[in-house]
């Protein structure tokens, strides 16, 4: 009897241990699954401090406004070197395939546009901006950008029916370094045509979006998607892009929540309305109120690199415009000192210097911006540029780590110059894209 009880106790204990082990393993696997995706984000060169940390860009837009298609087109445009661009975007194999599938679906004129993003499919795309210096052959990631993709309905329907997606999105907004307000060109076309759905969209549907942007403590930009569709709304037959954009701006400024948002933010930062087209002209048209592809249409994306390129230059220029000469010189000096040291810890030391601490306080007070340590780091590095790093100087560095660091500064300067060039091109072709608020 005693032996029987012993065996039974043993069986119970062993069974319990097996189940416990199984659960622990399952829990570990679940955790691994989550952290695997997190690792994909964080286990980058950015984390070792040798490149600028991640910049979080959040595109706020209604359902169907083209957030995902724009993203896929931007990546397709920038995922390779070009003659006039010294950087390209890289991402994980999984995300590359996913974006490629979306782009293929967009480009196939025998199929409809790809399915919209579902509410349950909120996902983060992470891109490494890899710089290439043709002169030296150096190549390294210098910047990392994350882009959250989500269903636009989250913004439109809020927390109806117990949905918590808006809470997740609000948290993402809090952590964003830049907000892109996505304005649907199709809705703009409806608005300009006098179709009530267009008016309703800007009057009611986008109201929460503008509200979120008004409260943002980070820089904001507007991206006007489907620019190829914003035509034939009654403009002069020979109207060019500038004239059409003037019409759009005039119509949008008619909405007080938009104009007041522009007025409020443009007083302290650059606010742009950047027209883009993920597909280009003659690819899609509107048939019976529905956007359709033209048979045999060929993709010719327009301006899809501009919003990405404008994020950092606009942010840094806005900072520079605010600081007085003394503070500016103090920051620049600290930045150069740090960079000349060619050491990673020099930046950390610079962040603690009184001039930098004071400047961060000024920036927060002046903009209401949360000027984080990583933004300040990037700003210091940008400010100190152009740091003339020649091949000879690189060779003089004491050790490989210092050489690598100096090389990165050089590569970063190349990328920033490319960004600047893209922004200048935009300003030259569409000067009114920089919005000015008026009461």
């Amino acid at each position: 009897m005693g032996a029987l009880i012993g065996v039974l106790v043993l069986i119970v204990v062993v069974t319990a241990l097996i189940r416990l082990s199984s659960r622990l393993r399952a829990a570990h696997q679940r955790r691994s699954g989550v952290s695997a995706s997190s690792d994909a984000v964080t286990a980058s060169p950015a984390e070792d401090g040798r490149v600028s940390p991640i910049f979080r860009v959040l595109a706020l837009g209604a359902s169907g406004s083209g957030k995902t298609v724009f993203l896929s087109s931007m990546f397709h445009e920038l995922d390779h070197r070009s003659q006039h661009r010294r950087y390209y975007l890289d991402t994980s194999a999984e995300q590359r395939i996913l974006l490629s599938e979306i782009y293929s679906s967009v480009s196939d004129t025998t199929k409809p546009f790809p399915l919209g993003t579902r509410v349950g499919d909120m996902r983060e795309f992470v891109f490494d901006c890899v710089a290439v210096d043709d002169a030296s052959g150096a190549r390294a990631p210098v910047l990392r950008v994350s882009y959250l993709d989500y269903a636009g309905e989250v913004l439109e329907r809020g927390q109806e029916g117990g949905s918590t997606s808006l809470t997740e999105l609000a948290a993402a907004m809090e952590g964003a370094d830049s907000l892109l307000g996505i304005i649907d060109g199709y809705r703009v076309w409806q608005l300009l045509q006098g179709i009530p759905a267009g008016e309703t969209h800007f009057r009611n549907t986008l109201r929460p979006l503008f509200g979120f942007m008004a409260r943002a403590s980070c820089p904001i930009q507007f991206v006007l998607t489907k620019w190829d569709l914003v035509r034939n709304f009654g403009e002069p037959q020979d109207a060019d892009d500038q004239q059409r954009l003037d019409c759009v701006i005039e119509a949008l400024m008619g909405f007080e929540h938009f104009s007041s948002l522009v007025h409020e933010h443009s007083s302290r930062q650059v606010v742009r309305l950047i027209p883009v087209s993920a597909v280009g002209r003659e690819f899609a048209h509107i048939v019976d109120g529905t956007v359709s592809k033209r048979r045999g249409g060929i993709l010719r994306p327009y301006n899809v690199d501009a919003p990405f390129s404008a994020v950092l230059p606009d942010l840094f220029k806005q900072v520079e415009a605010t600081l007085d000469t003394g503070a500016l010189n103090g920051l620049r000096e600290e930045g150069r000192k740090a960079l000349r040291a060619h050491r990673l810890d020099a930046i950390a030391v610079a962040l603690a210097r009184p001039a930098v601490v004071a400047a961060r306080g000024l920036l927060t007070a002046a903009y209401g911006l949360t000027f984080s340590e990583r933004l300040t780091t990037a700003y210091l590095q940008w400010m100190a540029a152009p740091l003339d790093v020649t091949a000879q100087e690189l060779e003089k560095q004491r050790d490989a780590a210092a050489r690598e660091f100096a090389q990165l500064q050089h590569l970063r300067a190349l990328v920033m110059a490319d960004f600047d060039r893209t922004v200048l091109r935009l300003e030259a072709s569409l000067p009114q894209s920089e919005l000015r608020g008026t009461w």
Partner: protein
Amino acid sequence: MTSTHQDTPAWPFLVGRGRHQGYRTLLAPGFLVEQDMYETLSAATPSVAPGVLGQAEITCAGLGRLALTYTTESISCDGAGGPDRVDEWLDEHGRPLEMLYGVVAHEPLSHTLAISDLSRAREDAHDAYRTFLADEDDFSVCVSQPYSLPRQAPGRRQNGVVAPDEQRQNARPGDRHRPEYRGRGAIALTAFVVLIVAAGVWLMGRGSTSANVSIIAAGARPANGDTCYSATQLSLQASLSAADGVRIHYRWVPTGALAADSPMPDETVTIRGGSQTVTDIRDASAAPYRLIIDGPVSRRSAPVTCRSSPAGTPTSYGSSETSPY
């Protein structure tokens, strides 16, 4: 291997987009609708490819853990019914329409469940989708009725049905809600019996008064001016019916994204002559609103949005159907 067949009630659900209305839950169990938790279904169901079963789990306050089993299906001409032209089944942005449908259960369903086991849910989903497409603007979530599905179905894997492991591999990243149930048959059975008994008691208790209280119509119009666009306030109106002398407690609850910023007062009205019209003024920025009756029984309207009237005609209230429960 020996096994037992045990059934558990499963409620169909449907999530989808309309031609111009966005992605939302269109069909859900009454207990989720009643607790205003039905959109958790749309948020907790990551993509799966058509023909693949997805599994997820949600936890709702007061309801505990719920297991979701679902799949997706493109809308075709022989699906939700309607015009024969394929392009009729695109939304206004040129994107195909799609149904994500499945079942909600208090118990996990068998890992070897096949798509064909969801045929009843698919039929109900089609019905709900047809209703939605017929009038997207005034649609309110439909309530589903449960049917029985097996908790265990040994042998299905041998019959060539997609194995659960394979299904999991096919599910996309982000599907973080995995059901993990084992050996809870007795608890499940007990819970089911208690649920049935409780539901019966509840239904018996509410029967005498609930049958007589209803929202006949609800709507909204600008409180100032003729157009919704320029309105800063809305005049919300509802027609209520109940027995004479019944005191109804109600409130207008904003359902827009700005809802959290706009706490709304409770109102009461005493019914005279079998029906009563109530009118209240609310801030337009928090629209749309939903009428909620808290007592003597619970009722709710679909969200009501402001309706402008054509120029030169008097303003009128947009109307909304009562939620079917």
